[in-house]
């Protein structure tokens, strides 16, 4: 297939996606919309974690921390000043935040920027570490960020968290951010930078020998990944409308890691699929918890049963699909064309001969 045709197909697919989003926004109820929104936010988070872990091979467990930074920056910027004065009970809000008030877009971009700056500061010393050591060090940093958020009530309102954040997030935002994230990260991976990142993943020493600047590329990948995590954190805050430090414990990072590994390391398509599947299955298992009848047997409502089922499902999937849903395979128009011609060989070949 020609490059030109692929571009047209991509634009068509985006238009279809836009129509779908429009239909969903106007027809679905708030509950279903929230699941879809969460799915899109997880897709952004997953794709950004895939950049640093799946493509660069650096085991980073710091995503919850970057999300927390994004979530707090966005909430502080979009809340109107008079409202902020009201909710800061523990200690009055510190100065610049009492007057600052920006539109949602600016807040999101600044969220990403602050998360990226944090990543730059953390990444420069820490990215020298390898493997599990890097993972535990980044996890430590994420926890430190959370603990700091817990201890500066004059900015974050401490353990009480921030409530009543305006609900700016809708499907246009979440899906839009996810599409932009995928576009930028895919572009990065297919560039010479991407080749360098994958060289680092395969073998650091070999990459260094052929002239890849390890520190530069690792820190770049880490910073970009953190930028999108920050933006996703901002969307997350404006979706839930309430945040507190407990929401960003390391369990959050584990959720994103599950999405990435379930989808297949190094596959953006897989990550997106897994992000939506993860949220759908979490929500559609809710009836289990509510209590139900199997014939004459009445099973009472048991809180926690949903997560037991979910983790059991997770274990089954990981035991039987060791390489994730997509196993590192990426969606492409070429692949789709090949797939279609395999299913309908006659139609495709006759079309070919007619032309």
């Amino acid at each position, binding site marked *: 297939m020609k490059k030109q045709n692929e571009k047209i197909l991509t634009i068509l697919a985006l238009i279809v996606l836009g129509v779908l989003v429009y239909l969903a926004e106007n027809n679905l109820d708030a509950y279903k919309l929230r699941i879809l929104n969460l799915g899109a936010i997880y897709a952004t988070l997953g794709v950004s974690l895939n950049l640093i872990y799946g493509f660069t091979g650096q085991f980073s467990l710091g995503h919850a921390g970057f999300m927390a930074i994004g979530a707090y920056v966005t909430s502080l910027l979009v809340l109107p000043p008079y409202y902020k004065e009201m909710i800061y009970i523990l200690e009055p809000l510190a100065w610049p935040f009492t007057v600052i008030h920006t539109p949602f877009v600016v807040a999101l971009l600044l969220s990403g920027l602050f998360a990226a700056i944090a990543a730059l500061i953390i990444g420069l*010393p820490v990215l020298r570490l390898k493997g599990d050591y890097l993972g535990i060090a980044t996890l430590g940093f994420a926890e*430190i960020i959370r603990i700091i958020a817990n201890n500066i009530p004059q900015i974050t309102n401490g353990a009480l968290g921030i409530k009543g954040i305006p609900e700016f997030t809708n499907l246009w935002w979440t899906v839009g951010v996810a599409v932009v994230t995928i576009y930028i990260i895919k572009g990065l991976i297919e560039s010479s930078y991407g080749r360098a990142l994958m060289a680092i993943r395969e073998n650091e020493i070999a990459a260094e020998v052929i002239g890849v600047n390890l520190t530069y590329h690792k820190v770049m990948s880490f910073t970009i990944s953190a930028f999108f995590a920050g933006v996703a954190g901002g969307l997350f805050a404006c979706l839930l409308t309430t945040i507190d430090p407990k929401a960003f414990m390391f369990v959050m990072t584990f959720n994103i890691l599950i999405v990435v590994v379930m989808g297949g390391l190094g596959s953006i398509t897989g990550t997106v699929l897994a992000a939506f599947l993860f949220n759908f299955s979490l929500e559609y298992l809710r009836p289990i918890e509510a209590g139900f009848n199997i014939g004459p047997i009445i099973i009472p409502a048991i809180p926690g049963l949903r997560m037991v089922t979910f983790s059991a499902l997770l274990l089954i999937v990981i035991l039987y699909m060791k390489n994730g849903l997509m196993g590192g395979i990426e969606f492409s128009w070429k692949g789709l064309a090949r797939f279609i011609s395999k299913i309908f060989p006659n139609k495709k070949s006759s079309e070919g001969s007619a032309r």
Partner: protein
Amino acid sequence: MSLHLVLQNLANGLSLGSLYALIAIGYTMVYGILRLINFAHGEIFMLAPYFLFYGVLIFHLPWWASIIVAIALTAVTGMLSERIAYRPLRNAPRISVLISAIGVSFFLQNLAIVIFTGIPKSVHRPTFFKRLFQFGEIRIQSTLFASVIVSAIFMTLLIYIVYRTKTGLAMRSISTDIETSRLMAVDVDKTISITFAIGSALAAVGGILWGLRFPQLFPLMGMMPGLKAFIAAVVGGIGNIPGAMLGGLILGMSEILFVAFLPALSGYRDAFIFAILILILLLKPNGILGKNIQEKV
């Protein structure tokens, strides 16, 4: 700060450190053999005091008997988790096993919420563990003594098993090279099962002592101690058993002393622990007692 307060805090730090050391050993043994961060270890730790609680409350066992039963049940749970969730993944990428461990951790946590409910429970403490000892101005709870003495006994036992028995030899050989060990007729699966049983039993001892010391049980109580014990294992040099003990003591001591000397910053206690971890990793990437492995091209 007066001398007796310093001594008091040192005693507290020693006892907390010995608990961290007991849990850290399980992490370090599993990591040494399977190169797996067993995130479910904190949940194993949480189960033991619950077993004790129910043994005393429902089955009316005497407390010493229910302690033995609780340790045994926890060891079995640890072995089962390996059998079901890790063994089938022996040849899978390491990240799959890690996700599997996270899955086990979620599973046990939520199973505990379902079975034990989320309402915190308080452990029945035998009267012996309520006594206070007075040395001049220092007051020491008997649980504090118990945790130091009991952990010392169990760690000596562990060192004997690992360095003086055939099973221990098998463990050490697997941690060096799993394939060659198999060729040398080491029963790898059995040895790994034993490793999990020992690690879980030690976590159970730690959990029970924890439950006697901080007598409040809730299904998520294993998360933070588990994470900190893992950090202790990394600080000491992961895969190294004396390292885990040393790391546990360092962590327990610094946690108590940080709060004692800087009470105004007590909210940052856990942040301080993580800062120690990061600092040690940057200065000595393989931990204090870890071997420095040179990378070969």
